[in-house]
């Protein structure tokens, strides 16, 4: 399975440029907190955390990485809810975020029970995907979903939150070949096909990168 995520930019690690003119102090501080300050859970119960972890692993699978190398996602969802940091809006009919996440995790178990007779954490990966697909399509079995928009939760809350956290991590930046922070140096080669010497290259170049 890890073959499918074979890096397009082998050997590229955006963090190698930590001391380059592309990383200023405020940016280093923000990213340092992201790498080192992974918050301990404060909001969810251990059981909720296990359900959430299982769902997040299907939204953004990382089978190619050991525990040390994985991008942490669930701790940041927990922190967002513990601090109740909002997004600026919610769709009418949806509850405020804390209630939404709690209810939705109950809903995941209800749907898994209805389809497979077991809790979400106790079913196989393919079955978890099926549960999530039913949420996405909007009419999953489960009492909670009668009054909670499962499609809205799945897309606008679950998927949107997970990708926002994952693609904020330097590991994801390196994976996608994103050149990352750029202050104060900026960019020079911005034309089509243009790659600055300090940006990731897909093949060896004659430039020595900083």
């Amino acid at each position, binding site marked *: 399975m890890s073959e499918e995520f074979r890096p397009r930019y082998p050997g590229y690690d955006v963090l190698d440029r930590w001391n380059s003119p592309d990383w200023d102090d405020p940016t280093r501080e923000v990213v340092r907190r992201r790498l080192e300050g992974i918050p301990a859970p404060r909001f969810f119960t251990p059981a909720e955390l296990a359900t959430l972890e299982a769902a997040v692993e299907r939204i953004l699978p990382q089978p190619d990485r050991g525990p040390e190398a994985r991008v942490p996602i669930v701790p940041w969802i927990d922190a967002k809810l513990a601090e109740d940091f909002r997004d600026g809006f919610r769709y009418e009919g949806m509850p405020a975020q804390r209630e939404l996440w709690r209810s939705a995790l109950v809903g995941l178990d209800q749907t898994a029970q209805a389809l497979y007779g077991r809790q979400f954490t106790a079913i196989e990966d393919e079955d978890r995907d099926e549960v999530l697909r039913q949420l996405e399509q909007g009419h999953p079995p489960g009492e909670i979903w009668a009054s909670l928009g499962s499609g809205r939760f799945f897309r606008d809350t679950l998927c949107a939150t997970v990708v926002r956290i994952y693609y904020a991590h330097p590991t994801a930046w390196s994976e996608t070949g994103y050149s990352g*922070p*750029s202050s104060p140096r900026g960019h020079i080669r911005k034309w*089509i096909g243009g790659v600055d010497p300090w940006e990731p290259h897909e093949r060896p170049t004659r430039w020595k990168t900083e």
Partner: protein
Amino acid sequence: MRRPRQLAEAEWSLRAPDIHGDAVPMRDRSGEVVDFCIVGSGAGGGTLGAKLAEAGFSVVILEAGPHWDPTRDFVSDEAGSSRLYWTEERISAGDDPIELGANNSGRGVGGSTVHYSMVAMRAHPDDFRRRTLEGNVPGAELRDWPLSYRDLEPYYEEVEEDLQVAGPTRYPWGPRRRRYPQREHDLNACAKQLVYGCERLGIPVAPAPIATLSAPHGDRPPCVYRGFCNYGCTTNAKSSVLVTYIPRAIRAGAEVRANATAIQVEHDAEGRVTAVVYLRAGQHGVQRQRARNVVVAGYAVETPRLLLHSASSLFPHGLANSSGWVGRCFMVHSGDQVFAHFKDRINQSKAPPPGGAITEHFNRSMPGSGFICGYTIEVVGPHPADFARRLTLSRRLWGAALRKEMLEYNYWSGLGIVGEVLPQRHNRIELADESDGNGVPIARVVFSYHENEKRLIQHAIGEMTRILQAAGGEASWAAGRTAHLLGGCRMGAEPGDSVVDADGRAHDVRNLWVCDGSLFPTSLAVNPSLTIQAIASRMAARIRTLAERREIQV
């Protein structure tokens, strides 16, 4: 008004961040009855505040968010920039409920100009005469503006000079105009694809006018093309209100009071406003800034919300709302985007991708198209988290499919529109049943597209796809999106049909003014900031004239 300037040093007892990491002295006006108390420090409030202070009026600007120091507070990081947005809860409702709280909001000194895309476009003469030109469109409340292009033209020029807009030698659309103050920026890869696609199809295209320096100006350097324009500019090349008008306002004696959230505008028994009530971090209890005039400049959600929440026995439906139009005809722009995959490396987030190149070829009513009004096509360049969000929301990608698609991040190039949205009465800002932490009811934002817009969006997606394909792009897909918040306190000549007059002055309350995007009677199909700033500049000039004639109290 022009009281003798005997400013003791002690009166400049406050310190405000300057733009290079130091601090500058600022006047403390908290104990005064000022000429103007302005709520909001963005494109409307910041611009107006500077011009009024320079004209000799005493000014306090209240801003809910912090006073940013560009050298410490802005980072090269998407997630680290969420503090630039208005993230307090709002309810989004209607048939096409909009996303709020990110690109279309701002919090902190400079407002959303701190993270806007800097596209500095003028509206066109026809944009101000929609009702005359299109007649009565069922379901829409089209009105002509009480201002014409000629009224705003000198102020467009003034703001372009103030911001040192960088643009092409000859801009192909709109009335004849002076050259832009600074030369155009080089195009990035995404902008080049727009140019190649348009040229192959015979569609006129040009470098966009951008409010970012291409050459040094004063104490600010030219752009180094970091590509993080939408997350705050660390080098001060971007001509946000934070680094242009705010320093001018402070130098001229205005106080810019950050972290001060206005919750109500008070009035006396005669119905004249007297003070703004606000809460301030670090200060206990409710604060009051007394003023002879109040300007509300909180953008198209917060401005109607504050007026509605200032209801009293004298104004039972909200301040300045005898017409019933406060909060009504709220508009956005359709901001739909199309992305295509290219064989060559694009690096979509590099350089100032917002803007870059532009075509206003479709910014007009096109007979036979099935819809009225039009749209501008611009270049977009989301960073990875934002791009992944589009993949999951629009293409419904998740799981391994999403991670694999993101490996192609550097090979996608995108276009987006600013599409005109018609004013509809049921699109509105109102107070919800739920309150925020300050006990103020939160805003309920109701939005549904008009049939006209649905057709406009389909047309635009078709054209953007055609352009990207002509440039060599493949596998294109569209992402639905809106941008900008407009209307809700529209200007008009008729008191029964609008909230404020052409000067932004409330029909009902003559010492209350509105100065932001909520004034727009129709939405235009251009990025709104330059028009908001031109209106603010014109307002400042009109206020000077009215003060000289003693038609307003200062």
